[in-house]
């Protein structure tokens, strides 16, 4: 059969809508992103390497960004799992409202959650004062970054897990119980392996979102170079110094990380679809 770009259809409007879609996307997304990648041709490879990979301040920022994102996503994997389980399996007063509130980080501007968390966890804040009494500094320190990144990642884990948990076949759990497994054994051997792809997808989504996050972290981190400075902030600092090349170099590294995460997430989703089939 000859190569055919599109299956025939009686519906009208494919040319118009596809044309506009590609035109708009090229103008707004592809050309600007391509412009950034092309910008790296203005520097030598050694310059790129030293400003994006070996500069100690940049390396420290990567460590803060990736480390805190990893911990935030892990916290979300544990508590998001419990939250999704409770929402799918149990009946309790206010369940619908709780289910709606989970989406709050999607809708709440990061600047708002940023100043709210900072005020909450500062040493005089509602929660921060209790940590202060035991000598733990949360706001303007590393734990604050983790808290901000946990907040924004939560809905990704819960919303990815919920459909997978609803698809669990209760019969399998019954079979497991009738064969003498304890509830804990059923959970570990039957439930967890089945929802594992969804859990990993949610973890990856929360991690990817956290690595790029700027607004909420900017307020709570304290932004001390080498210690609580995240990679996106360092891009902004380089730009304010009119160091376009330095900013571009870090930006391209972050872009590559985003692409890799997108790839991993797609593979995970393919895996979980195969699991469900």
């Amino acid at each position: 059969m000859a190569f055919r770009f599109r299956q025939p259809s009686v519906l009208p409007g494919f040319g118009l809508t596809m044309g506009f879609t590609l035109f708009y996307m090229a103008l707004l997304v592809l050309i600007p992103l391509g412009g950034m990648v092309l910008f790296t041709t203005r520097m030598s490879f050694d310059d790129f390497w030293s400003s994006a990979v070996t500069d100690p301040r940049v390396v420290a920022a990567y460590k803060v960004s990736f480390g805190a994102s990893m911990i935030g996503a892990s916290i979300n994997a544990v508590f998001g799992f419990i939250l999704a389980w409770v929402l799918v399996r149990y009946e309790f007063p206010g369940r619908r409202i709780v289910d709606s509130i989970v989406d709050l980080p999607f809708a709440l501007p990061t600047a708002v959650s940023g100043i709210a968390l900072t005020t909450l966890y500062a040493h005089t804040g509602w929660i921060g004062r209790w940590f202060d009494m035991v000598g733990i500094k949360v706001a303007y320190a590393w734990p604050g970054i983790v808290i901000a990144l946990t907040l924004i990642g939560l809905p990704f884990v819960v919303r990815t897990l919920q459909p997978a948990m609803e698809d669990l076949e209760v019969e399998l759990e019954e079979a497991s119980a009738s064969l003498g497994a304890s509830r804990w054994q059923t959970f570990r051997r039957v439930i967890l392996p089945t929802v594992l792809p969804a859990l990993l997808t949610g973890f990856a989504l929360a991690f990817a979102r956290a690595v790029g996050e700027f607004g909420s972290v900017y307020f709570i981190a304290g932004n001390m170079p080498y210690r609580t400075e995240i990679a996106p902030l360092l891009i902004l600092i380089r730009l304010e110094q009119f160091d376009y090349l330095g900013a571009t170099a870090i930006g391209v590294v972050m872009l590559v990380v985003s692409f890799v995460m997108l790839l991993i997430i797609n593979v995970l989703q393919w895996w979980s679809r195969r699991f469900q089939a």
Partner: protein
Amino acid sequence: MAGVVSMRHQSGPGRASQGKTEPAPVRWALITIALAFLGLFLVMPLVLVFTYAFNRGLGVYFAALTEPDAMAAIRLTLITAAICVPLNTVFGVCAAWSIAKFEFRGKNLLITLIDMPFAISPIIAGLIFVLLFGARGWFGPWLIDNNIRIIFATPGIVLATMFVTFPFVARELIPLMQAQGTDEEQSALTLGASGWQMFWRVTLPNVKWGLIYGVILCNARAMGEFGAVSVVSGHIRGLTNTMPLHIEVLYNDYQFTASFAVASLLALLALVTLVVKSVVEWKGAREHAQAVREAESEQS
């Protein structure tokens, strides 16, 4: 990346029967842990915003919202959203129509490309436009010669916001339209409807709730975007400060009450977005149930 997760999801009632669920103490312990976690991370910050906004009385609250810089920030935010949301809505409808109703090669690649702005840091969203239009960017010298300002001016803010909110409407509509298939549209055409009649009378009514939620979410994100906008704005008070940037300026000036007053407006917008989402899901579930009932009564 929000779109990778279906945002139109709501759990049905808890359906595990007795006997194969956890013992009651475990159940209540898990519910307590879940609620405590949610309260600590989501509810407390929200309560704090409103408490701090009103803690010096209504007079101070409204004074903070009506002073000239705040008014200018609110105006700029509204202008930005008024440009971004309609454009991204038109794009979303076009993209959803071509992707959901037709089969063609490279569809998955196209969907991944549409998702890209979700995966990219908002700082990079700002950076790419500085590299294009900034003083030392690709078109910078030409723009300076012709006295056109994009970066540190409204066009830059609009562009960065458009980039960040680019996928929202499309990601809401694509799965919805895919699930609905093309039968109803084909019937409309067979009965003699023109393309536009089919779109306005069949397609649009079918997806209206999903479209409304996509638009509302796109709007909330457009009004609340901070990272991308702070790269391109230059923080010129009264001129290029949007509401989130105004919140930052006030907060760094230790004007906490005023800062939380402006923040409370955006928090309110977020709450309205969540309520709309719940209504949309409720309507969607009701219409779905009705369709199922009708199909069953036709069969009997």
